[in-house]
């Protein structure tokens, strides 16, 4: 939801980043305010997932230029765990499996670490159990999920739901969902989207990184950005996603100059 008076959460300017000496991000500018939902679309290899990881602070990427302000703080100075504690959340495209570690154990540690930093009381296992079960209803999850090892043997849909559950628990100020829709069937997609919509509120913001506009039928963005070769080449409203869906990404390449001049 766009509100002219709301404050800026994230301000990215001229961001450049590379991995193993290859430049992937070639000057990204993006401003995200409270209450807004942004979608970043683009073909594989356009740099959208890299952008998500760089925001979260993945150590494999080297930031070679530009700046990122997160709630007025210089995000680039913070290690990834402090970015997370400050309220930046990344829902992973490929969540890792942790054999032998029960979900409830992992979720509680994450919750207590992040919420503890914000001055909230840490929850003991019993209190946490009540709390997490309540949140699980958002995502239509079965209770046995808590005792299973983190993501081990989970279906694609279960993994993604687990990501959104963590988002619900940690109450981030800015959530970045990296291809959360990939590998989901339509029912799972609806459940995940419904969870995300319930978490969204005027005080937080979201960036949806996606390949297809399908997800945007269920989570309606305020802005759609198109990435190509490490840059945002076009920005529009939700109708831009539909336009892309019918015309394809080639249309962007052909019209970048003229269209960009009008919309950006």
């Amino acid at each position, binding site marked *: 939801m766009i509100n002219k008076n709301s404050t800026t959460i994230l301000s990215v300017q001229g961001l450049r980043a590379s991995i193993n000496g290859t430049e992937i991000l070639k000057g990204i500018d993006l401003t995200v305010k409270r209450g807004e939902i942004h979608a970043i679309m683009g073909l594989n290899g356009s740099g959208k997932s890299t952008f998500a990881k760089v925001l*979260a*602070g*993945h*150590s*494999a990427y080297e930031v070679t230029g530009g700046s990122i302000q997160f709630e007025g703080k210089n995000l680039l100075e913070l*290690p*990834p*765990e402090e*970015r*997370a*504690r400050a309220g930046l*959340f*990344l829902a*992973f495209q490929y*969540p*890792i499996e*942790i*054999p*032998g*570690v029960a979900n409830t*154990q*992992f979720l509680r*540690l*994450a919750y207590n*670490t*992040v919420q503890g*930093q914000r001055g909230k009381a840490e929850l003991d296992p019993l209190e946490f159990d009540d709390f997490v079960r309540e949140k699980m209803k958002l995502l239509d999850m079965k209770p046995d999920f808590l005792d299973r*090892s983190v993501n081990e043997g989970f279906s694609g849909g279960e993994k993604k739901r687990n990501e959104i559950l*963590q988002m619900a628990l*940690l109450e981030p100020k800015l959530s970045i969902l990296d291809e959360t829709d990939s590998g989901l069937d339509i029912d799972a997609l609806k459940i995940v989207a419904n969870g995300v919509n319930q978490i969204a509120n005027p005080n937080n913001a979201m960036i949806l990184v996606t390949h297809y506009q399908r997800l945007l039928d269920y989570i309606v963005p305020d802005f759609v950005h198109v990435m190509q070769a490490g840059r945002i080449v076009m920005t529009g409203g939700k109708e831009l996603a539909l336009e892309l869906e019918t015309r394809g990404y080639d249309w962007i390449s052909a019209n970048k100059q003229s269209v960009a001049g009008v919309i950006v």
Partner: protein
Amino acid sequence: MSAVLQSLVNQPYKHGFVTEIESDIAPKGLNEDIIRLISTKKNEPEWLLSFRLKAYQKWLTMTEPEWQNVHYPKIDFQAISYYSAPKPKKKLASMDEVDPELLRTFEKLGVPMHERAALAGVAVDVIFDSVSVATTYKEKLAEVGIIFCSISEAVQTHPELIQKYLGSVVPVGDNYFAALNSAVFTDGSFCFIPKGVKCPMDLSTYFRINTEGSGQFERTLIIAEEGASVSYLEGCTAPRFDTNQLHAAVVELIALDNADIKYSTVQNWYAGDENGVGGIFNFVTKRGLAKGINSRISWTQVETGSAITWKYPSCILRGDNSVGEFYSVAVTNNYQQADTGTKMIHLGKNTRSTIVSKGISSGHSNSSYRGLVRIAPTAENARNYSQCDSMLIGDQCGAHTFPYIQVHNNSAKVEHEASTSKIGEDQLFYFSQRGIDAEEAVSMIINGFCKDVFQQLPMEFAVEATKLLSFKLEGSVG
């Protein structure tokens, strides 16, 4: 490898201190005279001296094994002192008479003996260097007919049992290090559970090497008669030294019909410094004989210490329907080397064995699993399940698996599974994105990885092991 992954393991060794106690040390070197000296000092019967001399003669004809996947400078067996005992002032009647310096050492180690014994209901037979200093709960155990004492005491009080069982599972010439131990062992534990008795508490021994340059050669013998059962805990720490210390123990377990022996070890001896200088050389022969029908022998080990670990706790499943188990976690860091595993020898019908091995390597260390499953022609319907998982932390370490499977009976079912995983940047990034720092992340991943083994440990040991691993791997990720 991120800088985080390099630093978690490098916590200085907590138990590195030397207790100043006057020691009675034999001159360095090994010959028949030294063996006679040991035997005389310990007031041993003639047959035991013969046992030692026979082992020594055997040892002289043997060569140090070289098949294991570890590398170390040649050991100079003539540079080792084979006997060291704290000088006895007088016979000790109670704990109050124990050298206060010694008690302080136990405090530093976190083994407040009487409290621990009282609180946990554990009888602690404390071995300090080579002589048993104090034994608690012995009388209580004696009420149900259990004998739990040092092996040298047992030689005096129950010579018939020692003579019957000593060397019956690990013969004097079994291997190079077992032969050496048989020749020069100075002390260790003896445990005898008579027919039908379920030992009412876990039996526990803390071993500790203290005198610089003196090898320690413990000898442990545990016998469970028909229908008896016992859970035995062995925990080890050692003070910090720069010269390598040889340790070559022998443990023999004997389970008769329907008997059950569970042997758990947490080994945290000095592993050498971050450059691989110093540390204990640990060459151990542990073997259990499941002699009777329906008997069970279960080994659980958490190996985190020693510069070199060479150890294969094994089960000979002779009785029909007997069961052998081996649960192991081996952690190596810096320049540590571990070559450990088990042997499951199936002789009886319907014998079953389970092997679960978890190897964790970090720093420049090397960890190998080496295991033998042998199904003899007589072992109808034998079954084995083996699972060997390795985890690597960083990219300078190595993990190896050497499974040997010999099946000589068509009715056997043998399964082997193996996996290798790595704690890498992406795993740590996932945790850090949830606000969890690298040390906690590694600790959680490792404990999850080892869960199947930790579940087998008695409660207090499981807690200790979990802490030990976190502590051990601190700084390996950075």
